[in-house]
């Protein structure tokens, strides 16, 4: 486990250094924006283009909601075009004073009360270096009791808090917006129990995903989710964002695999829902409220999760397709012909492939003889090595004969397999290295999904590089616009177009990353106003003072 930590730290360090230049760029650009623009609500900031652009093709009720949500409050522009998010500090919140620090020291002990500027700078900044808070205090409770005491106190003092796990979230949800106290769960990192027969793992929320994966590996089990950030992200963070990842097509969403949770509410009360049962229909299944609510309703402290057995035969193919329709047909057939052994179906376009080949060291194109428009990665997991391989080969050869696949390579050993995965998992890092990036994580009907990428390319022309990749098997597109630097003109071409297009096609503006700060005000693109109202009522019920992760997930006008 130490090794993994060291590796994760090394990666984090590299990322920190490599993004340094970029944050300089951002700062530089921000200086160019006159101060008045930053504060003037009627200027053409990205948040406002949304309301003034005619939304003619838009569903009527959503249009009203959008106008309403944008007009109600005065906006303060925090991060120029980079973050495109507009909020104002809620004056109902107190600020930390000397007595507060004495209290925290008393209940936690000095080493869990962090005021060191360097540590705070890291904790205030998100993975993309796009969102930055100015918190002066981070608390690292070691158990549920300590966390409960912290929240009880913060609630009575109206001190706002932001729950933080591995801080790999991609929507600005895991860092403070202003001076919220950071409550980091990293010290709550022990495995509580594991049942070999049922495969139920019970652990604390701060366990790092990769550590859980290696813990289970020794027992012959795997985690039902896997994602590129595994070396840093924590299971509590995964559940709070309802992370999807690379294996969802096989093992389903966390709403299915999480069997129980222990959470602490804003007033410090501990809610024990830590069941380990597959079936339990007694009353409302409230744990689901905390899966995907991004720390806005309570802080997860313990987790009980169903883990599948590790199967010995894993095969991976890296394929080339001429057009998007072939990718779709391939998915359709894979679901039928690979059935129970299909464990991942991922796609990337040639733009994504080029980025990875250019920006990551030691990556090699598995199919170098030609440039293809699309690449698909198929993984099978089963229990019979020779059967599974034969099934996959037969499927692929058939697909090739039918012209769905133009070329492909089949990994012959683990190192080839991991180099195929490295291409797919390396895309976010390659995009980071390429310059400024606007990230959109959308759920769309599979047949329409790539039309958006093409339309976006037409809109932006030579101004930016539009990249499409994602979890095709789940209908999840990661649309990324990569540009030399952050630019209001580019952003105005992307937003609100992306959100309107997605809403029109009955998609979701957040498939798996959540809303965080980035999209809190955009929720109406995917949810009706009645639904959002009900969400606000739930929030008010569980967190009447609104201290938990304020300004995130739902429009702040509804809760403050």
């Amino acid at each position, binding site marked *: 486990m130490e090794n993994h930590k060291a590796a994760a730290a090394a990666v984090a360090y590299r990322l920190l250094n490599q993004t340094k230049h970029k944050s300089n760029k951002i700062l530089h650009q921000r200086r160019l924006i006159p101060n008045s623009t930053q504060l003037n609500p009627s200027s053409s900031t990205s948040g406002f283009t949304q309301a003034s652009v005619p939304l003619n093709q838009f569903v009527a009720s959503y249009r009203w909601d959008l106008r309403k949500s944008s007009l109600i409050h005065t906006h303060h522009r925090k991060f120029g075009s980079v973050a495109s998010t507009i909020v104002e500090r809620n004056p109902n919140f107190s600020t930390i004073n000397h007595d507060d620090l004495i209290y925290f020291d008393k209940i936690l002990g000095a080493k869990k009360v962090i005021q060191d500027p360097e540590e705070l700078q890291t904790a205030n900044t998100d993975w993309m270096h796009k969102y930055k808070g100015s918190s002066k205090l981070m608390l690292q409770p070691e158990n549920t009791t300590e966390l409960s005491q912290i929240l009880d106190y913060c609630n009575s003092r109206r001190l706002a808090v932001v729950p933080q796990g591995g801080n790999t979230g991609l929507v600005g949800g895991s860092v403070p917006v202003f001076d919220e106290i950071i409550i980091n769960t990293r010290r709550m990192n022990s495995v509580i129990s594991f049942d070999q027969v049922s495969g139920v793992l019970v652990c604390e929320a701060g366990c790092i995903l990769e550590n859980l994966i290696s813990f289970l590996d020794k027992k012959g089990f795997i985690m039902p989710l896997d994602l590129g950030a595994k070396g840093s992200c924590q299971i509590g963070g995964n559940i709070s964002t309802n992370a999807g990842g690379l294996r969802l097509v096989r093992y389903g969403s966390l709403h299915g695999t999480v069997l129980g949770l222990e959470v602490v509410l804003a007033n410090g009360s501990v809610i024990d829902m830590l069941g380990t049962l597959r079936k339990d229909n007694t009353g409302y299944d409230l744990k689901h409220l905390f899966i995907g609510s991004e720390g806005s309703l309570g802080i997860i402290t313990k987790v009980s999760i169903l883990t599948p057995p590790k199967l010995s035969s894993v095969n991976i193919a*890296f394929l080339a397709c001429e057009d998007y329709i072939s990718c779709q047909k391939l998915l359709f057939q894979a679901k039928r012909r690979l059935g129970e052994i299909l464990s991942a179906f991922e796609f990337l376009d040639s733009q994504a492939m080029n980025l990875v080949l250019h920006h990551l060291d030691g990556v090699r194109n598995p199919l170098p003889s030609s440039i293809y428009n699309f690449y698909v990665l198929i993984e099978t997991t089963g229990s019979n090595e020779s059967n599974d391989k034969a099934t996959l080969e037969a499927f*692929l050869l058939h697909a090739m004969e039918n012209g769905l696949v133009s070329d*492909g*390579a*089949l990994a*012959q*050993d*683990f190192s080839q397999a991991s180099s195929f995965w490295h291409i797919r998992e390396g895309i976010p890092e390659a995009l980071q290295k390429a310059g400024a990036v606007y990230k959109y994580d959308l759920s769309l009907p599979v047949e329409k999904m790539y039309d958006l990428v093409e339309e976006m390319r037409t809109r932006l022309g030579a101004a930016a590089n539009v990249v499409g990749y994602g979890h095709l098997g789940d209908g999840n597109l990661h649309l990324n616009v990569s540009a030399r630097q952050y630019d209001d003109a580019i952003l105005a071409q992307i937003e609100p177009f992306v959100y309107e297009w997605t809403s029109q096609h009955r998609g979701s503006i957040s498939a798996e990353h959540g809303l965080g700060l980035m999209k809190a005000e955009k929720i109406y693109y995917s949810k009706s106003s009645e639904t959002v109202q009900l969400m606000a009522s739930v929030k008010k019920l569980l967190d009447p003072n609104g201290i938990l992760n304020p300004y995130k997930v739902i429009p702040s006008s509804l809760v403050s």
Partner: protein
Amino acid sequence: MKIMVAIKRVVDYAVKIRIKSDKTGVETTNVKMSMNPFCEIALEEALRMKESGVASEVIAVSMGPTQCVDTLRTGLAMGADRAIHVDAPSTLYPLTVAKLLKALVQVEKPGLLILGKQAIDDDCNQTGQMVAGLLNWPQGTFASKVVVDKEKKAATVDREVDGGLETLCLDLPAVITTDLRLNQPRYATLPNIMKAKSKPIKKMSLAELNVDLRSDLEVVQVTAPPVRKAGVILSSVDELVDKLKNEAHVI
């Protein structure tokens, strides 16, 4: 000119090795097996020679139990023209393999025999040298670059030695063993996997090749290296000095 390439089936490079409980060897049941990485490099080099017109045919050979056929199929999918599988029990020592290779060379008469410098399971690094001795052929081991001159029937081999490169010129036929930096092996592509299905794999027995299994080696015991003891964190320099003096006895 034909090129013969020796291929070994080994526990996958990425698998964590476990010792059998009776200490007779390494656990291989239900473990992912793959082509030895140095053999992949050997095969890649042979394929490149064929593509550049130096060689006319690449023959992949492997000896061991039936499953070696899977590894040979991978070799065929990478581009070898045909394969020979010598059916033998799983534990073969370098000298036996060298004798089998010599017998196969006498049947096929290749101009070049290429092997990996060692297999990642037993790390012996002996087979290439032994077969060169048995055949009385020149040898270029640990090759990091190979250039074949068809007209002169010679190969120039750069080898990585301590402190630099040594360049040898060998008359063909010769034995070459490959080092890690020689090349980067290709992937098995679907069209080639499809073609490989119809390529022949000839099966031969030890008796046909007139080699017996007798070995002068006996494995007494296989054990895992001792587990490294966890370190301790000391709280002061004084404590460190004390430990160095009284526990480690080094100062």
